[in-house]
Structure formats: C-alpha cells, structure tokens
C-alpha cells in the first residue's frame, strides 16, 4: 500500500462515488417514501395487475407486508444490484486498465514502489470504496426509515440483508478488478469485467420469470441474494458470504499476482 497513491486515487475518483451514492440515496428515499402500511395492499394489487412476467423479471414476484420485506422486494431485488454493478465496472477500469492503456502507469511503476505495492493500493481502494458505498447506503436507509416510519423497520433483518449485499457486491467487484489487471487495452478489460457481471444480471432477470427457469440460478451469482428469503429468515446468508468471500479472495489475489508478473507495454 502506498498512501500518496491512495490519496491521489481517492481525489480523482470521489466524484463518481458521490454520484452513485446520490443515485442509491434517491431511490432509497423514494422507495421508503412509497411504503404506506395502509396502502401496501394497494401497491400489491397494482403489482398483481401488471403482466406477471414483466414484474417478475425485476424481482417483484412476491407481495410485501412489512417495511423490511417491502424494501427487500423493491430495492434489494433490482436497484442494489444494478447501480453498484455499474460503479464496480467504471471504477475497476479507471484504477488499473485505463492507466495501462493510456501509459500513465509508467509513471507509477517508475517510482521506487514494487508493482505489488501499486496494485494492492488500487485493489484496496476498489474494495474499500465499494464497501463504504454500501455501508453508507445501509446507514441512510436506516435513518430514512426511522425518520419516516419510526419503529417500523426490522433492523436486524435489514442489517443481515445489507451484509449479504456487501459480500455479494465485493465478489462482483473482484471480477471487474481481475479483468482490469490482465489486459493491456481498456476495451478488453471492459468487455470481460463488464460483460460477465451484466450477463449474471440478465440471467438473474430471466430466472425470475416463472419457476421453469429456476435451473438458471446455477449460472448467476445474483441468485445467492434472495432478498425476500433473507429478511423473512427462510434463508441464512452464510452460504452467500462464504462463496462471495472465496471469489473475492481468489480473484483479487489472482489479479495482483498476474499484474505484477506480466509484460506491460507502457
């Protein structure tokens, strides 16, 4: 880790962090604001009235009865997947592949810091900023729900759901980071690092449509995060966390090792 580089990276990337936080916050406040203990029934009726397949694709398959299940359904089924995913793709590309593609990596490596040191600094920023984004989002979700509906939120279920989300997003970020480390050109890094998570996302949408597509769950990481089952206690997050942690460690580790040993045409 090199703190000067960390500082410079943070300085050049904090605005992206802020934008994604603002998006997540906006949706969070809209979703919580839409919750009305009396009109949950009305909302559920609206969902039922829409073409079933379309709503299911977005994960809105069940009907919600409490604030935490409502949020799990409408926020953790779609928004918490897609926006952090885009954040990971953009950030991973900026942190490594863009520097290699442009050639500015030459200046970082022409300093008395080993490649391992440079790349672990970028890896640390990646993982830490993703984690921080979701922790702040969790905090603001709790604050918003307490402000609007005091005492309505099942806090422990909400925290469990968010912990699972953080682990899963870190696993997704490791795919983006790994591909950013292994290519000389940013376009290939984007194609692999963006392509695989987006494919997971699309498969997950298809999986949600009807029970006959359930076999697709073996082809997407996102099937590990069944928000509704987690908040109702039907599913523990242990499997999700273990699998995500394994992917995270393997891909970040491999990214660092490959980057520090490969040829760089700077």
């Amino acid at each position, binding site marked *: 880790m*090199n703190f*000067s*580089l960390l500082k*410079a990276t943070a300085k*050049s990337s904090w605005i992206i962090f802020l934008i994604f936080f603002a998006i997540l916050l906006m949706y969070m406040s809209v979703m919580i604001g839409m919750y009305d203990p009396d009109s949950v029934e009305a909302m559920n009726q609206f969902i039922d009235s829409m073409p079933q397949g379309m709503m299911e694709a977005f994960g809105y398959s069940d009907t919600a009865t409490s604030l935490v299940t409502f949020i799990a359904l409408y926020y953790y089924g779609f928004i918490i997947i897609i926006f952090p995913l885009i954040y990971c793709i953009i950030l991973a590309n900026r942190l490594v592949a863009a520097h290699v593609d*442009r*050639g*500015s990596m*030459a*200046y*970082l*490596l*022409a*300093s*008395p*810091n*080993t*490649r391992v*040191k440079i790349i672990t600094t970028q890896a640390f920023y990646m993982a830490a900023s993703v984690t921080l984004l979701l922790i702040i989002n969790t905090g603001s979700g709790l604050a918003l729900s307490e402000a609007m509906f005091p005492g309505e939120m099942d806090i422990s279920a909400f925290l469990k759901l968010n912990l699972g989300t953080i682990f899963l997003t870190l696993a997704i970020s490791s795919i983006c980071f790994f591909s950013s480390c292994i290519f000389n050109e940013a376009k290939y890094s984007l194609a692999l690092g963006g392509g695989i998570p987006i494919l997971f996302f699309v498969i997950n949408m298809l999986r949600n449509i009807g029970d006959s597509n359930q076999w697709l769950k073996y082809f997407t990481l996102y099937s590990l995060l069944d928000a509704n089952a987690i908040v109702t206690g039907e599913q523990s997050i242990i499997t999700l966390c273990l699998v995500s942690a394994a992917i995270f460690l393997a891909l970040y580790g491999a990214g660092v090792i490959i980057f520090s*040993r490969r*040829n*760089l*045409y*700077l």
Partner: protein
Amino acid sequence: MSQYGQGPETVRIPWVGGKYSGQLKNNVPHGRGKLLMPDGTKYDGEWQEGKPHGRGIIIYANGAAYKGEFYEGKKHGYGKYAQPKGKTIKGRWDQGKFLHSIDELQKGAAVPNKTGKKEAICISTLTFTYSNGKGIFDINFNVDHGEVFGFLGPNGAGKTTAIRNLLGFTKPKSGSCTINGFDCWDDAAKIQSELGYLPGEMAFFDEMSGTQFLNLIGDLRGKRGNSRRRDLTKRFEFDPTGKIRRMSKGMKQKLGIVTAFMHDPAVYILDEPTSGLDPLMQNIFVELILEEKERGKTILMSSHNFEETYRTCDRAGIIREGRLVAVEDVHSLKSSQRKAYLVTLGRKEDLNHLRSAGLEIGQISKNTVEIYVSGNYDHFIATLARCNVLGIEVASQSLEQVFLKYYGQEAVL
C-alpha cells in the same frame, strides 16, 4: 530583474553583522549581491529572501572556498570545494553535507550497486519479441558511469522495446539487463530511486494539474526535490499550475522532463526527449544534458536525430529492425555520416563536370542537384569551385539516409 530592488545598495545585515552590497527585495538581499563578514568570510552570488540561494562563491576566513550551488543558505547541489592548502574536490552536497565526489559518481561508487559492476547500464544478449514477430534480438551494449549514450534508430526499430526492458515493464525472452548491478526485471523497484525516466509517450493523469502531478510523483519517490523542481520549471519557462489535459504537446514534454530530472538521480533513461520541444527549448535541453554529464551522471537517450545525439553523447548505438548494427564513438559516426547538399548550378555543362569528378549525385530537378558527401569535403569543395554555383542548401535527411552504411540502400528506397 525589475522584480528586484534598485541595486547595488550597501546595507548592514543585523543578524549576521556583515556588509552586503547588491540587490534587495523588501529590504533583504534578493537577486545578486556580495556579502563581507567581519571575520573575512566573503560570499558573492545569488540570494533569495536573505540567504545565499542559487549559484555563488564563498571564500571562508581560513582560505577554503566553495563555488557552486546553494539552497537556502547551505551548500546544496553540485560544486567545487577548495581546501586552504590546494586540494580541490568536485562533488555533490545535500543541505550543507558533503555527499560524494564526481569521481565517485563516475566510478559508480556513489550509488548503491548490487554486484559492483563497473558499468551503470549493462545489456547482454537481450531478446524480446512481440507476438507479431517484431522485437529486439540479441542486443549487447554497456553504458559506463558518467557516460552519455545515444540510442539511434528510426521509428519502430526497437528503441522503446529495449527501454521497456530496462524499466522492468517487460521481461526479456532471453538475456538480461542491469542498472547499477540490479536486474531490471527482478529488482525494478530498487533501481527507480536513482533513475530518471522520460517515457516516449506523453501520458499523465489528465485530471490533475501539473503541480499536483509533480507532487504525486515526488511523494511516490519519497523525495519531492522542490529546489531542483523550481530550477527546472524556471529554466524551461514552464508553468505547471494548469490542468494537464489543457497542456500543449510541448508543455507536456516539459512536464515529463521536470518529472524525470527533479529527484536528481544518478542514471537517466530518456526516450526521444526533445520531441515536441521547439528549437529554443531543444537547446536548453541540450545544455541540461551537458550539465548533468559534467556532474558525472549516466544518461541513455534514444533519438532519431543524429545531430542532437552528436551534440550530447559520447557514444551511440545504432539499431535497425531490432538488431544493434553499430556501437561507436560519436566522432567516428560523424565521419561516416553521409550528408546531402542541394546545389543549384548556373550552367548546364557543370552537371557533366560534377559527374566526371566522381561525386555521388542523386536526384536532379531542373538545375538543382543533390550531392552526397561523406568525409571527402575537400574534393567536394574543389569540384564546386570550378562550377558556377548559384546556391547551396543542406537537404534534410532521415536517419537511414545519414547512415546508409548501416541501413543499406534498400532502407532508403
């Protein structure tokens, strides 16, 4: 000099008790001036905010003298120190402390050296190939401590490929290269604190300002080198405060030069350092190189311009299609240089005269002929003296044309 007060003025400096005559700013010495201390110590040179700063000479009361660079009142940078009884040391000081002599630097003893190799840069049987079959093949040459080595070749000949291996960006397919005895691949990070690198491609952190970038690089090195950085920006008339994205090509090249030189390393690797610089700045750059050479630094610079190499380098290697075709003293290269002159003739029959004299004649248009000369200037001039010459111009040439001997006729055609 209008920023300084009217000088010379003589004032007593209360805190040292000496007599100062020279330029002032805000009532303290600033600019050029002389100081005489009560004990007989004399300083003559540049000042900044009341302290010797820049170049100057100090003669101590005991007869010892130092001529060289100062920074905030202390010996800092390069200079000569003469002891009261004759012996003189040329060397490098840091914050008033003697670091090492130029001799030591030239022998390579001043910087950490892993194997104690005599040469600063060693390249032995270095081969690196790309997937398309291009690359460099079996390159061998050494650069001694204190030597300036030119790496000549046209674009695409493999100069940058060799430099990538020296910087540890790529791993040699076979062979090896070392800098100060450290292997360029295995010990890449250890080499960097004594290495100044100027990449051939200008790619910085676009969203930063020049100052922010220089600060970042300084911090990454753990050495900001502020005084040298200020000197360099002043010398190249470079304003680093703007955003890098908005800088012109020349400005970016200056930023690269300041980055490579500001930490005052022992070895420089410069990839086409003058590209993007106007002729005036090229001259300033050449001066900087000659000054660094004087200081005992080792420099490897690539170029596709022989004139520039000739002005700065001791030896040069010529690379062609990935292979080193010659490593020679620049003076002997100069003699094998083949120059082209465009001569405009007044009479038709002069052409026959030139032909019969055995001069090598190229393209002819109307009454202007291109004549190639390599070394045999006397004959060239004697022949022309018998013709009606209306004008002579030096034709601009590519490196392949200059070194036809090494590149062969087919490279030119």
